[in-house]
């Protein structure tokens, strides 16, 4: 039953995504001729937006709700949390959850035939699990030959030619795209945390993973907000640039 529901959701989302795929914005006609060819090389318009945002009205509403949530609910909780756990412990939590996500990255590397990444991920996982106390220490981050950008199902979908679809801001969960949202749901089924029983423990761990990683990102969020002329557009741009960067690797 559950599986059928998921398939239905996936199918629906695919249709939505395809709908958006056709509406890719046409590249801008205006190029700064004076700056010459290098200008075009460095900033090909196709990768620098405007990024698809058919749901802008909805997104802006949720975005300002989220900003309020971050400011008035999450930040005070975070102050207590960071006061209680020193940076090393929080980094340890982060390392642990990242290491645990290995099967997701492995499967998606496989689906994209990125065998070198599979090897790197596997070696990192083994080293960090056995010599990094179950993944609490990220001992491989100093080994350049084992660095590999994380793969996920959304990148797999991109690999097979699916467009990102519209930008989407979800309540509490934050920025994503239609494709990334579908990808996250699919990935969550392969994530070891989803096999934890009972459910209460499962959701507590997933919640802690999310909160811990949000806590790590809070300073960056605040500095983006502080430096922004248009906070919404800035976050959207950061999100797309970051995701496009991952897809390329």
């Amino acid at each position, binding site marked *: 039953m559950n599986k059928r529901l998921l398939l239905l959701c996936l199918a629906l989302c695919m249709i939505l995504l395809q709908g958006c795929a056709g509406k890719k914005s046409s590249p801008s006609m205006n190029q*700064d001729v004076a700056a010459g060819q290098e200008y075009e090389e460095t900033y090909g318009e196709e990768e620098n937006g405007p990024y698809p945002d058919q749901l802008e009205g909805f997104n802006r509403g949720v975005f300002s709700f989220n900003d309020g949530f971050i400011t008035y609910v999450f930040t005070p909780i975070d102050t207590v949390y960071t006061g209680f756990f020193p940076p090393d412990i929080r980094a340890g939590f982060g390392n642990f959850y990242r290491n645990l996500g290995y099967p997701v990255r492995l499967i998606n590397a496989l689906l994209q035939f990125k065998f070198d990444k599979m090897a790197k991920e596997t070696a990192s996982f083994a080293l960090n699990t056995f010599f990094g106390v179950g993944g609490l220490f990220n001992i491989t981050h*100093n080994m350049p030959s084992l*660095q590999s950008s994380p793969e996920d199902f959304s990148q797999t979908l991109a690999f097979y030619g699916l467009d990102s679809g519209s930008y989407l801001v979800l309540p509490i969960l934050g920025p994503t795209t239609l494709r990334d949202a579908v990808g996250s749901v699919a990935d969550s089924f392969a994530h070891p945390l989803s096999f934890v029983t009972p459910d209460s423990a499962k959701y507590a761990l997933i919640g802690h993973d999310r909160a811990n990683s949000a806590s790590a990102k809070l300073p960056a969020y605040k500095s983006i907000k502080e430096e922004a002329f248009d906070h919404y557009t800035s976050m959207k741009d950061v999100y797309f640039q970051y995701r496009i960067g991952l897809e390329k690797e």
Partner: protein
Amino acid sequence: MRILFLFLIMLLPAPAVSQDNPTSYIRANVDKVVNILTSPEYEAETNKTEQLRQIEAVVDNFFDAEELSKRSLGQYWRIFTPEQKQEFQPLFLKLIKQVYLKKSITYNGEVVNYNQEIIKSDTLAEVHTTVTSPDLNIPIIYYMIRKDVSWKVYDVSVENVSLIKNYRSQFRSILQNNSPDKLIATLRDKTNE
């Protein structure tokens, strides 16, 4: 004899740090900033203003104001009048310097590794670096241009997110509904904080 030899070596002028290749330019500037940040001279709270001033002096020559501006405005550069361009450039440079300064004072013993230098042409280059802290690697790319003798930075990307592209998206969204003068006024407010 050996002592005399050592002495002679010490008399030789210290080799000037070559700045005619992109990586050594970045390295020289980053090292200068890190030295100022870690110097015990500025540890006292009263010396912090002087420390900031010193870093600012280094950062002053780091960026190419015209190139930063052109690239952040993209197609809108052409609708700016010469006067507006004149006004925009120093303000935007000031903003970028402020952002860079704010980031650099959070320095906490990270190590900068210079991974790769990509020479795209006689006048364009990329310097790929990684900033490594005990539990994190952050890839930072400096995009550089050479207009006269020295290389200058026209964009910095952190984790694949380009600073200038980010401002470009924002400026585009502002200039769709507002005049260049409005953007310049906002920029002035922002840099005077």
